[in-house]
């Protein structure tokens, strides 16, 4: 079937098999390999992207159903080469070791900041619990989110 997808503001016209997940289409057809395939069953969060501004799992999303929606991946987060405050904070706070879960953590974290569920460390941990990190970089990830939250708040004042 024919479908027109919009990813990071750019339009793509594709012939899709209805079985193709958004994750596979991003990685294998559009060369957007920043979004990672961890479990491919909705359990790890590595494939997190935004659809119409809400964080979702691209492994459980059929690509053909994304017609008319705005998809944002990790490749669409930096603006003109300038990192998002959370991307910068992840580097500064060692929010990663191997880095495989990192794009998913950042996409979930950016949504979390917009949802307003980052008021305490406990709240951050609860609302980030859908993103697993097998290296155990959780403390750095939580610190990075706190840092980005404070920086974005100060910038907004």
């Amino acid at each position, binding site marked *: 079937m024919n479908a027109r997808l919009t990813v990071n503001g750019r339009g793509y016209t594709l012939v899709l*098999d*209805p*079985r193709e997940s958004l994750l596979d289409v991003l990685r294998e057809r559009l060369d957007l390999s920043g979004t990672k395939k961890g479990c491919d069953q*909705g359990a790890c969060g590595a494939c997190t992207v935004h659809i119409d501004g*809400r964080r979702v799992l691209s492994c459980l*999303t059929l690509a053909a159903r994304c017609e008319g929606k705005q998809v944002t991946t990790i490749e669409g987060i930096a603006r003109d080469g300038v990192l998002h405050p959370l991307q910068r904070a992840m580097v500064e706070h060692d929010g990663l070791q191997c880095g495989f879960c990192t794009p998913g953590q950042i996409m*979930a974290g950016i949504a979390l900041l917009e949802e307003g569920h980052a008021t305490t460390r406990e709240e951050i941990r609860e609302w980030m619990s*859908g993103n697993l990190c097998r290296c155990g970089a959780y403390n750095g990830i939580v610190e990075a989110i706190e840092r980005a939250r404070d920086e974005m708040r100060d910038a907004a004042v």
Partner: protein
Amino acid sequence: MQPFELVTPVGITEAVELGRAVDAVYLAGGTNVVDFLRTGAMRASTLVDIDRLPLRGIDFDGQRLRIGALTRMSELAAEPAVRDRYKFIAESLELSASAQLRNMASIGGNLLQRTRCLYFRERNFKCNKRTPGSGCAARDGENRRHAILGGSEACVATHASDLAVALVAADAEVHLHGPSGEWTSLLETFYLEPESTPEIETRIGRGDLIVAVSVPPVPGGERSVYLKLRERASYEFALVSVAASVDLDGALIREARIALGGVATRPWRARETEARLQGVALDDSGVLREAAASAFVDARPLRDNGFKVELGTRAIVAAVRQAGGGA
């Protein structure tokens, strides 16, 4: 994944027409269906994409709550009327899955989600629910997570939904459209025990589509509690869960509603416990404990899950105290 056709009906009537076909499955949020089609635990030749049907939204008229079946879990959890008057419903949602899954999964789909029994999921094992007549690998296998109530020789898989437990406690009704018209069922009796046909989990018939859930007022709903006990702090299914509301008359319980998750083959209303709690003082620990224990008189623990009797009893006591405003 087996090939399937993806069709998009424009209205409910057309959806039901397409959905009544053999091997057709409705697709809403997709979190359950896409996963199970991939693992082979489910099959479908046609997926009927209902996501753009006008079944999304929440209406509270001051008395009754009506939830469109395509409302997302995150949307229902954030609804002020739900947080204020049906606290256990909001809590059951926010203690489920992850923020990403809650943004995707629909309320109708949540109620129809399949069990998380690992033997159901893995095609290499016997499972009467997946392949009727093949046997049950859980009865003599790893059954720590399985049911102690409502099981049968054929199946001891637990029902996975937290939301359904809170809704059963709230006397919610489910509204459907089907090939023979519209119908409504109390959610509690919508779910069936497995008996000899565990592949049949609800009263839903071929082509029936959940369009809404409605919830009457819950006395004490503003203090109601969803207590969920699990092996991780978050993002995990329940070992034992309790939805409890308590309506007080001074220091005495006028009416309590108790439903259990994680322990039974369907969302489990603990009616005997509710009856025994009537007129009891909230600080009467002995009577509270006896009432809670009565929920498990008919329990049939398996090799690995006998702990659920004591854990469940204590969880009910704790949830009732909390819902009554005590510690």
